[in-house]
């Protein structure tokens, strides 16, 4: 509890907060008494522009949908919800400033989470100091929850589990040697750490583990290195651009692996379409898919239909996670019966909610044991192949050689 904030973060906080923050640890009013018109203000900063705008934009969609639905149902505890969403431009410093503003100037009654592990980690120091909890829906890096913070909760599966299904499937088809590659940043490194751990448990030898800089576009040398080390499968902790380049160059160089999985790239909606046949048989991870008949979470069907009606596409997991987190927040507020932040925190720490996203029940660190799923791209469609209880089809592994496609 005592070492919540590292020294560097503390200096950062002091400099950023010192100017704008007259009453750092003031106890907030228990209800929205200060606001006219029987309204409560719910606010957050999220990346509407910048490099995170794609995934975060889908969360914005889900947030707006939830607010309108809730107001349609008569609001929260009899109050009409007013949404104040600001754009952090995918920038950590901007986000910190905006959260300070939301809390101290706008005096929001409920906080929403930002997007991405990096930004969430920075903002976690701000809301922690003001003792306002939120449920994070855009951060999967477990170190955020390993610093004794009390006011941040998590709904999504952590990075370490992104390759869990792929490693299990590799084990099932008899892979003995595999490689882990990934972008050199926090989230892919955590995913790599998890993959290594799962591989060790299942007796798969990791023959190469290598990270590449963010701007890397030429992977031919790295791929060559993997083959000469004897890797049969590749667990790639990658986003769109790097996963796309790796697959293309595998095909160009006629390098064949039994299995290739990527953490983020294949789960983006346009990955199969933009890559065409090169994306076939690739494994990817998803926190959630809009498949009510398979996942069977309560309320899924209605949510998916409402979202699709409004935005013209099915919600992806980013949207599902954000919506689920808001359902949790709503349930906690209703249980507490007020907007008292301390009681709300206690409720979020103990409550069990079945959301459209899955079950929410956090451990002592504030982390939810959310179960994700692994899919394979088959005929341009994402089909769930793991875990077995949710598998739509049998995985087609090993991947056929490029020359036979």
């Amino acid at each position: 509890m005592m070492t919540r904030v590292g020294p560097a973060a503390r200096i950062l906080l002091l400099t950023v907060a010192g100017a704008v923050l007259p009453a750092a640890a003031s106890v907030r009013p228990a209800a929205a008494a200060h606001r006219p018109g029987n309204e409560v203000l719910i606010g957050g900063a999220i990346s509407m522009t910048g490099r995170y705008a794609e995934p975060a934009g889908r969360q914005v969609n889900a947030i707006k949908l939830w607010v309108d639905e809730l107001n349609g149902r008569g609001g929260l505890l009899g109050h009409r919800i007013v949404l104040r969403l600001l754009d952090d431009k995918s920038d950590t410093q901007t986000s910190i400033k905006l959260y300070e503003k939301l809390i101290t100037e706008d005096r929001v009654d409920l906080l929403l989470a930002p997007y991405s592990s990096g930004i969430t980690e920075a903002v976690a120091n701000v809301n922690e100091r003001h003792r306002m909890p939120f449920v994070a829906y855009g951060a999967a890096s477990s170190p955020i929850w390993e610093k004794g913070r009390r006011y941040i909760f998590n709904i999504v599966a952590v990075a370490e589990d992104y390759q869990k299904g792929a490693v299990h499937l590799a084990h099932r088809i008899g892979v003995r040697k595999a490689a882990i590659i990934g972008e050199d940043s926090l989230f892919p490194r955590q995913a790599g750490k998890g993959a290594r751990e799962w591989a060790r448990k299942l007796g798969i030898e990791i023959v190469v583990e290598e990270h590449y800089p963010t701007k890397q576009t030429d992977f031919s040398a790295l791929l060559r290195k993997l083959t000469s080390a004897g890797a049969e499968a590749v667990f790639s902790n990658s986003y769109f651009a790097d996963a796309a380049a790796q697959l293309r160059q595998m095909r160009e160089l006629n390098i064949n692996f039994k299995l290739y999985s990527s953490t983020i790239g294949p789960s983006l909606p346009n990955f199969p379409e933009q890559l065409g046949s090169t994306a076939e048989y690739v494994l990817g991870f998803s926190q959630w898919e809009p498949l009510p008949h398979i996942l069977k979470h309560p309320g899924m069907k209605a949510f998916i239909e409402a979202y699709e009606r409004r935005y013209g596409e099915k919600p992806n997991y980013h949207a599902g996670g954000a919506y689920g987190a808001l359902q949790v927040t709503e349930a906690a507020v209703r249980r507490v019966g007020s907007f008292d932040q301390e009681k709300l925190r206690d409720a979020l720490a103990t409550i069990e909610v079945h959301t459209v996203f899955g079950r929410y029940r956090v451990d002592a660190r504030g982390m939810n044991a959310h179960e994700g799923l692994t899919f394979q791209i088959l005929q341009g469609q994402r089909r769930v192949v793991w875990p077995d209880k949710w598998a739509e089809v049998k995985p087609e592994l090993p991947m056929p050689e490029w020359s036979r496609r």
Partner: protein
Amino acid sequence: MREEAGARGREAGELPDALVAAPGAPAARRGPGPGGWRERPDVRSLYRLAAFLAAAYALPFAVGAWAGTVRLDAAWLAGLATVVLGGVMQGGVYAMFAVGLTLIFGVMRIINAAHGEMVMMGAYLTWVAFFAFGVDPLLSLALTLPLAFLFGMAVQRLLLDAAVGAPELTGLLITFGLGLVMIYTAELLFTTDFRTIPYAPGTVVLAPGVAVGQNRVISFLMAVGISTAVYLVLRFSRLGKAVRATALNAEVALVCGIDVRRIYLLTTGLAAALAVAGGALVSIQFGFNPETGVVYTLQAFAIIVLGGRGHYVGALIGAVMLGVLEALVSLLVPNGTAMVELAAYALLIAVLLIRPGGLMGVREG
């Protein structure tokens, strides 16, 4: 005539016709001369540079031998050949980013911070042509290049004319602003979703075990073709001579009857067209979104500094050097892929220490 121009340029610290001079030409052209080493720092630094480069490119092999990743069997050599070839191809793409940037800098002394965004625009133009109209990415160049040329001219007339001759920061800020406008316009039109074009995914096998992607070969040939054409125009046509004269000394060019504003207009048009051609290469090889342009600007900038600011051939050579070095480090050094940026910038710094003007550049006065 050219002799004089070159010498004058060096004295004045202005850009000489080295904008298009062949590698090593400035030193060779002067001949051995009586002065010996001391009067020929250029020559001496060339030898030092050669020694350094030999060491730099040998280093990954040494590390590889020490780490046991070097095996001298046929399969390994084929792999090495593939990787070096890949590096050269990558260099071709880098070169396409760099030549347009170096052109604007050479002629107007403006660092075009929106260059990467022009590359990004090219990628989107090609993408739209492919997905909306079904036009082959190479064919669509016939349409997109003139468009880009017009765009470049508009940028010159409306924005950059004000920055020519002003302090370097002025042009940098104007183009930076232009870049932001382009990024957000692209986000508005296309969202931040990543795009790419599934084009020519097959492979070209050159020898057993030595293969290279079709789209990379196409890209490389296109890069070589376009940059050679631009080189020839700059070197031999009247227009090219006028461009070089303007780069050398705009005032004297003006006195000689060259319409300098027109040259600026054409230069930026040409640079935009080159950037858009680079964007077409990006769209068939990599994923891109409105934000990726920034990376291309940085890469292009590093290359033109390496090659010699404003030097056309220098940019080409610098690009291929970087591509190959990155590939070697990635292949041979344990966990080397994480170090490719380190290697690239170490090379850049070392080259600049040996030759402050860059590989092909001349010492600035």
